[in-house]
């Protein structure tokens, strides 16, 4: 069966520090991968998606970047965090041809 792992669960980082959130998927090949953010009081906002290794599409201009070094690995990064980067980050995957998306447990990021 397929599983998705996302870590860490919570993270507190100072302003200006780097960020790396990792997401891995097991049990499937060539998934579509997604990073979403949920800011306080707002809905889920799509940040990045990837249809294959090295292929990253950004939905909104921002301080973050994403990379897909392996088929089932999706990384969210920042060189210098801003206070506004605080939020709840969700990784998700969807199989090609499937309509259902599966989500990770999420990472609560607080930038102080």
């Amino acid at each position, binding site marked *: 069966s397929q599983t998705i792992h996302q870590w860490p669960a919570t993270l507190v980082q100072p302003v200006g520090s780097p960020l790396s959130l990792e997401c891995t998927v097991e049990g499937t090949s060539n998934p*579509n991968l*997604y990073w*979403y953010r949920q800011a306080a*009081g*707002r*809905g*889920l*906002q*799509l940040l990045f*998606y*990837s*249809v294959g290794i090295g292929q990253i*599409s950004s*939905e909104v201009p921002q301080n973050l970047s994403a990379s897909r070094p392996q088929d089932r690995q999706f990384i969210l990064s920042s060189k210098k965090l801003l206070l506004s980067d605080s939020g709840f980050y*969700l990784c998700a995957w969807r199989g090609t041809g499937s*309509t*259902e*998306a*599966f*989500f*990770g*447990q*999420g990472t609560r990021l607080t930038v102080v």
Partner: protein
Amino acid sequence: AQRVTQPEKLLSVFKGAPVELKCNYSYSGSPELFWYVQYSRQRLQLLLRHISRESIKGFTADLNKGETSFHLKKPFAQEEDSAMYYCALRRASGSARQLTFGSGTQLTVLP
């Protein structure tokens, strides 16, 4: 551009009462609509999709293209229905076909 609107951030109903979570969308093409749910301390997960025309846990949702709505309904709410509900839209075509989510509605079913 596609957009999903859930006008209610918080909704409380008593156990056994009917519940309706509203969702409106804007999209120029033919969308696919979904409801996702997140129970306390659990992952966000798919509840139902309009193309399946299914009833899950007593919930149903009908796509009304004229009103561009996809409201989620249940005739008799249960306490275990308390959760965060997200309406989502996906393009019917295009690469990745990512989901666009609404801002969510926190449903509380009171005993």
